[in-house]
């Protein structure tokens, strides 16, 4: 028999109690007389070793049990102490869930015990025994099947917790502990009365017997159930009656609050789930409502926090709220309930413990001082891990849990819940990412050092790595998880890059990454067809070309390459994905990678945050859309094809997905993240995020529109709306670009406008429209990468992005000038270069479709593009060279090579547009058979007109060459003059700075049409952020730190709760 070797779970309780009893003999006072510090040190350590031993054994027992449940088919076992039947004995149950939860409690207890080594030395042996009792109590809470025993264990746990808080010997902790005692005392009171009533009406104290007694059907039984449920809910610190709990988080030492957050919350939660079986469906619903209020409220509160512990406290409470929601909806979730709980619980458990431990390592609660963590990049890595895990980003378990949650809820028709949960998650992301941004960007106090003894970092390491492993486990368990194999190898490479990241110079990593991407493209992408192949060329081909610029960097560039590769894996994954799970994981991977890339820029902290917020918001909308599609298609499949078969909610799905994708293409209204993010990024990151990443949104739209065609919402055709939106985006984006003083911001706004063209053209849903969109997209990719690289090179040399500070750089950087010149000609769509293809096609499409006014707006946008194009090249490269740039060098060769590759591409496209457009047209025919373009050799013939790129190029070159030769002949003896040899009305200029016309270049234009570019959208989003903050600020007044107030809140909660439940 296998189970014979299993240790009886009662030993967990026994060892806990026994050891803490023994610990009582170690009187700390007895050893203080010893003069030898060494000696006293060793003796002080002895009780700690004893406790760790006890915890290890307890952990081992749980682990052993869990092992046999999982792999040996062990059956749950009831344990009765002292030979009595319940209610007279302590009645324990060791089942799979119990084993799991006790393992969680004991493991975090053990690791926190390790972690707290020096804290315990300070607090003395009493603390050790109290700590052990706490862990023991939590184990008891989990295992007991007896409602009275439950009360006892709860009491033990709360008193032990309060004791530990008080022992910290600081005034704040003392008051926090006291408040904690008052509140838990009150709650225990309610629980006790509830138990008495339950026993009276149900005749048993055993939970299972009570469940059979159907208490809710008995008049008084309802009251019993009410009291039990409300008190257990209160134990979980529901919003807003949780001030006492938050204070406890803030005041207790970091190891302890890791236990409170991870273990206590888990245990109490488990109890609630255990006890709820004595109730009926109504109570589940109530639990869900309390949960969602807690989730939203606590996360809202988190926004305003400046202290890490308190903020994490709110986050913990919020997470528990989410668990309550899931528990409350367990009926509707059916089979996937356990998986969801597992995922969310594990993420919360690992991440929260890990984050609390990090707080202890950093030794400050003030969020803005966290830059110091950068001294240990590994810890930053784990912090990122925990934050991503907490927020449910892949590859962490909560991602898969949330994914399943949303799909299942949608399938059950609970769309409001989906919305609220996603909204709450978004709010949570606000403060967690803000915090992470502080860590990555804010200046650290150089004086302070970061001490990281092994016993403190080990738990962090362990939990960090566990997060990944459990993520893997969850990914296997999730429906469709078997299709995730395509991510393993690439992500393994990312992991490899992380490992070598700190040791290799940048050129090795750059080469490795490029080779890996080439392999990735060759191995995975070779078989793709049509759209996917086209985007594969942009994503992977473009990615490799822009990465050549990476050779210009020196040093190690720690933390860059893993994320670049991750972003490209995400992008590639989008193309490879066949089901919505793969698609969504790819989307999130791409977002994650690009977030880290963007935040690397010098001043990009706020911009990266807003990027992340919009991306996550968009991702959540996509998730919601997928959920609806999953529900609306009628077939329980996660294949991407469900989009084609949607029967219900099709307008809503279309809207959600379209808006989600358009956060990436930065359509007007959702564009405010883009300029900052693109402009402040590093010089080789800007082309990646601008020229390549934006196309991901376009690819999303391609998938959506091909699958769903045209949909309408409320009688309005959605593509029609998109068309207007795209046109307005194009115009306003370009107008805003024309008024920028910062070169990279100008380019970023130009991207907004250019993607507006794309959205506009796609909205046509016609052959020509899509051909236009693809021509625009290809063109935008090439010239925007070219321009960002060229300007990046200039910025690298001049150390400024403000255009009017430059000037006359053509003399010093002629090669960059040529790049920019070609780039802007392609951008503005002048024949004979490739940009004209898109313009010509768009006119055809406009006339064919009859969207004259939208087409007109887009034409105007094209005219405005001239303004900023010229400004870009003039103010930087022409005009007067400045004193301080007299000896400036040409951009590094590594930056120039990709530029010239791209110029080659532009020239090739321009000479032979049919080479690219013809095949695209051919595969577009299967989707849009009507109105295809005819090709007559190199001449495109539409029903409206004709365009021969080859002929135009040749004729233009012919004329150009002839005139140039003539002029060169006529002025063959020209004297080369310098910058001040200009006619200045008989005067001579005094300084180049005063002779360069660059600032506010289009002043008259701004005077006339500037009213169009008032930052209304920015104000709108700022307004929303303000509202969130002020709500948060208002709610914060509930938490005034007054113990009586907190007790009153608890009672008020009970009263309100009673009104709503038993009325």
């Amino acid at each position, binding site marked *: 028999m296998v189970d014979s070797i299993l240790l009886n779970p009662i030993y967990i309780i026994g060892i806990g109690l026994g050891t803490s009893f023994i610990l009582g003999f170690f009187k700390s006072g007895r050893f203080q007389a010893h003069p030898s510090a060494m000696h006293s040190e060793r003796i002080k350590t002895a009780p700690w070793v004893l406790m760790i031993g006890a915890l290890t054994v307890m952990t081992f027992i749980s682990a052993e049990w869990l092992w046999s449940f999982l792999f040996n088919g062990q059956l749950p076992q009831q344990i009765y102490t002292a030979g009595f039947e319940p209610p007279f004995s302590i009645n324990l149950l060791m089942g799979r869930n119990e084993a799991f939860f006790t393992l969680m409690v004991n493991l975090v207890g053990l690791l926190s015990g390790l972690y707290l080594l020096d804290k315990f030395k300070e607090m003395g042996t009493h603390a050790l025994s109290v700590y052990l009792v706490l862990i023991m109590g939590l184990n008891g809470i989990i295992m007991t099947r007896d409602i009275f025993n439950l009360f006892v264990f709860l009491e033990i746990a709360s008193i032990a917790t309060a004791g530990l808080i008080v022992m910290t010997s600081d005034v704040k902790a003392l008051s926090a502990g006291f408040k904690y005692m008052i509140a838990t005392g009150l709650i225990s009171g309610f629980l006790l009365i509830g138990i008495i009533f339950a026993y009276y009406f149900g005749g048993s104290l055993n939970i299972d017997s009570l469940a059979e007694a159907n208490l809710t059907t008995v008049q008084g039984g309802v009251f019993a159930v009410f009291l039990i449920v409300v008190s257990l809910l209160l134990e979980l610190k529901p919003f807003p009656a949780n001030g006492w709990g938050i204070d406890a988080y803030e005041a207790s030492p970091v190891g302890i609050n890791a236990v409170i957050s991870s273990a206590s919350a888990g245990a109490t939660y488990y109890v609630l789930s255990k006890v709820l079986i004595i109730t009926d469906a109504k109570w589940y619903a109530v639990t869900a409502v309390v949960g969602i209020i807690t989730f939203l409220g606590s996360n809202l509160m988190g926004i305003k926090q400046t202290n890490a512990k308190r903020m994490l406290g709110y986050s913990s409470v919020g997470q528990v709220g989410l668990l309550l929601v899931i528990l409350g909806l367990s009926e509707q979730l059916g089979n996937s309930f356990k998986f969801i709980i597992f995922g969310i619980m594990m993420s919360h458990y690992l991440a929260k413990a890990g984050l609390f431990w990090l707080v202890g390592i950093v030794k400050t609660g003030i969020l803005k001082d966290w830059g110091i963590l950068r001294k240990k990049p590994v810890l930053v890595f784990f912090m990122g891990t925990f934050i991503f895990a907490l927020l449910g980003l892949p590859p962490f378990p909560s991602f898969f849990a949330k994914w399943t949650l949303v799909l299942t809820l949608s399938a059950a028709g609970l769309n409001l819940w989906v919305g609220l949960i996603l909204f709450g998650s978004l709010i949570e992301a606000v403060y967690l990412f803000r915090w992470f941004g502080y860590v990555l960007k804010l200046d650290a106090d150089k004086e302070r050092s970061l001490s990281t003894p092994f016993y403190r970092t080990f738990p962090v390491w362990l939990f960090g790595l566990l997060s990944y492993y459990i993520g893997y486990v969850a990914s296997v368990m999730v429906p469709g998880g078997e299709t995730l194999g395509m991510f393993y190898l690439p992500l393994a490479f990312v992991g490899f890059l992380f490992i070598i990241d700190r040791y290799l110079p940048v050129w090795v990593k750059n080469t490795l990454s490029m080779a890996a991407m080439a392999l990735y493209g060759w191995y995975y992408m070779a078989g793709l067809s049509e759209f996917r192949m086209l985007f594969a060329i942009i994503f992977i081909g473009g990615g490799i070309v822009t990465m050549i610029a990476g050779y210009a960097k020196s040093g190690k560039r720690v933390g860059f390459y893993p994320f670049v590769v991750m972003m490209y894996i995400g992008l590639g994954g989008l193309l490879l994905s066949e089901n919505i799970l793969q698609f969504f994981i790819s989307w999130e991977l791409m977002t994650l990678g690009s977030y880290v890339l963007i935040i690397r820029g010098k001043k990009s902290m706020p911009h990266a945050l807003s990027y992340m917020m919009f991306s996550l918001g968009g991702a959540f909308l996509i998730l919601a859309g997928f959920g609806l599609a999953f529900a609306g298609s009628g077939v329980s499949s996660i294949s991407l094809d469900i989009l084609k078969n949607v029967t219900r909610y099709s307008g809503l799905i279309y809207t959600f997905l379209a808006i989600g994708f358009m956060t990436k293409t930065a359509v007007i209204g959702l564009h405010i993240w883009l300029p900052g993010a693109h402009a402040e990024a590093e010089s080789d990151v800007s082309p990646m995020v601008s020229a390549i990443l934006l196309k991901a949104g376009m690819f999303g739209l391609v998938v959506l529109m091909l699958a769903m065609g045209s949909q309408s919402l409320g009688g309005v055709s959605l593509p029609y709306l998109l068309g207007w939106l795209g046109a307005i985006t194009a115009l306003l984006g370009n107008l805003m670009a024309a008024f920028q003083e910062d070169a990279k911001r100008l380019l970023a706004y130009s991207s907004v406008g250019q993607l507006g063209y794309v959205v506009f053209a796609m909205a046509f849903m016609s052959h020509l429209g899509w051909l236009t969109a693809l021509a625009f997209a290809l063109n935008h990719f090439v010239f925007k990468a070219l321009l960002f690289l060229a300007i990046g090179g200039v910025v690298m040399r001049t150390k400024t992005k403000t255009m009017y500070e430059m000037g006359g750089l053509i003399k010093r950087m002629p090669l960059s000038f040529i790049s920019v010149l070609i780039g802007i000609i392609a951008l503005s769509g002048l024949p004979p270069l490739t940009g004209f293809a898109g313009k010509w096609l768009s006119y055809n499409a406009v006339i064919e479709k009859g969207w004259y006014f939208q087409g007109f707006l887009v034409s105007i946008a094209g005219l405005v593009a001239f303004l900023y194009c010229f400004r870009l090249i003039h103010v930087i490269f022409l005009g007067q060279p400045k004193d301080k*740039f007299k000896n400036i060098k040409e951009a590094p060769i590594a930056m120039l090579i990709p530029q010239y590759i791209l110029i080659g591409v532009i020239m090739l496209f321009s000479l032979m547009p049919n080479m690219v457009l013809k095949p695209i047209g051919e595969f577009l025919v299967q989707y849009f058979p009507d109105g295809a373009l005819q090709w007559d050799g190199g001449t495109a013939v539409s029903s409206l007109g004709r365009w021969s790129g080859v002929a135009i190029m040749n004729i233009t070159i012919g004329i150009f060459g002839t005139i140039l030769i003539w002029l060169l002949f006529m002025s063959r*003896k020209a004297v080369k003059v*310098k910058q001040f*040899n200009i006619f200045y009305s*008989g005067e*001579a200029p*005094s300084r180049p700075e005063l002779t360069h016309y660059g600032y506010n270049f289009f002043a008259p234009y701004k005077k006339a049409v500037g009213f169009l570019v008032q930052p209304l959208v920015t104000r709108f989003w700022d307004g929303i952020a303000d509202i969130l903050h002020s709500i948060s600020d208002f709610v914060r007044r509930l938490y005034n730190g007054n113990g009586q107030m907190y007790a009153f809140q608890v009672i008020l909660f009970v009263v309100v709760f009673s009104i709503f439940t038993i009325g």
Partner: protein
Amino acid sequence: MSLKDIEKRTVIGPMGEEIEIDPLRDYYCAATPDLKMEQRKSSIPIIEKFANWARSESLWILAFGTGCGGIELRPLVTPKYDVYRFGIQIRATPRQSNVFIISGYLSVKTLKRAIRAYEQMPSPKYLLALGSCTINGGMYWDSYNTINRLDYYLPVDVYVAGCMPRPESILAGFDSLKQLIKDGKGEGAAKYAEKFEWYKKNQKQIIKDWDMPDYNW
């Protein structure tokens, strides 16, 4: 513009390096007029003759009035005199003009600007000096700040005497200028290049704060 602006200075570059700036060397072309270039003629006489005819029939005046004569030029474009019919037009930039009219007395301060403007014109260029002031100082002959003889500083092709000359005289002056050009004698610019050092010596003698390169391209 003053002497201060052509002093050498040191600025800090973007990489934190120090950069020496010598405005005269760095910002101005150091070349002086090349006599060969100024006298460049087509090897085929008929073409040169044709070119001279075109030059004489297309006289573009630089719109730069010095002294009191500036206002006296205005009647030329009125219906009564209408110089346009003789191929004479007015341009606002020396780059596109080939006739410079010194219309009256020249103070030293204006002389500096006149030299700059004259040198900025492409050759062949012609200089028409108006009024007694440009010939011998006229009524300002003993002024502390006006020059006496223009031809010491710039090569004059045609003098039109008078104080001020009537528009008819100016038209007559244009006629003689045209004749000069047609005869291939409108070579003021070549003369300037030939006796460049002498001109510069005279100019520098009276312009005490010489704050420009020797030749303003």
